[in-house]
């Protein structure tokens, strides 16, 4: 461990440039599957937040379960296509963004339950639409930020 390379080894700058090119290729590979990804993810979030509006509690729980299943299938499809999993500590900005989106969704879900308990079922449509938009924009931005972090080798 710890002696510098001999004179005939590639120079350090060339090695670092090569690693930067690899990081570019990785970022290009970890691209979100295609345009369907964001709307489907957003639809799953909207379904989850809309579930409390259903007056029949068994059906409401079933919708929450369906939304959970959709999230799991989307994550599985993403892994299948990219072949990689994310290390959260390595991509702080995109993780913070994803955490903010998750917190907003949790807030919207709580709001939906409150509205449904108050008998304002029709207003849950607004929180559901908000969940759709927040997830659509948030997941798109988090994905872009994550790829930028991968390009920097983080």
């Amino acid at each position, binding site marked *: 461990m710890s002696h510098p390379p001999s004179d005939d080894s590639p120079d350090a700058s060339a090695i670092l440039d090569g690693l930067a090119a690899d990081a570019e290729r990785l970022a290009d590979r970890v691209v979100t599957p295609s345009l369907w990804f964001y709307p489907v993810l957003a639809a799953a979030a909207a379904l989850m937040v809309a579930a409390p509006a259903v007056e029949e509690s068994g059906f409401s729980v079933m919708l929450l379960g369906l939304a959970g299943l959709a999230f799991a299938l989307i994550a599985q499809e993403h892994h299948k296509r990219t072949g990689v999993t994310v290390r959260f500590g*390595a991509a702080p900005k995109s993780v913070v963004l994803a955490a903010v989106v998750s917190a907003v969704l949790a807030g919207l879900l709580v709001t939906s339950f409150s509205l449904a308990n108050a008998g304002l079922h029709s207003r849950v449509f607004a929180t559901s639409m908000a969940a759709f938009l927040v997830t659509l924009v948030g997941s798109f931005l988090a994905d872009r930020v994550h790829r930028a972090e991968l390009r920097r080798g983080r």
Partner: protein
Amino acid sequence: MGVEAAFDDAIHAPTRLRLCAMLRPLGSADFGALAATLEVSDANLSKTIRNLAEIGYVSVAKHSSPERGDARRVTSVSLTPRGRAALDGHLAALRELARTAEAN
């Protein structure tokens, strides 16, 4: 807090260094994804992973995959904390060398 520069012979070989750097921002990567992204042969990558696993720089897990029609399992590779520390030190050493060469 800065990383202490430490040139590491065990990680300096091109495929080893590229593999570790590729794994640095990831939780894990499947063998196929690594071979495709690094553009190296399966045999070369397999040998490199085995060597790095022997010195504790990467860990290997095999899992079944519903996508596979046969009984073979998917190999996924991740950088260990030891490997990450070695890579960070080695990259810091390379940056120092590059700065020195640029200054001369």
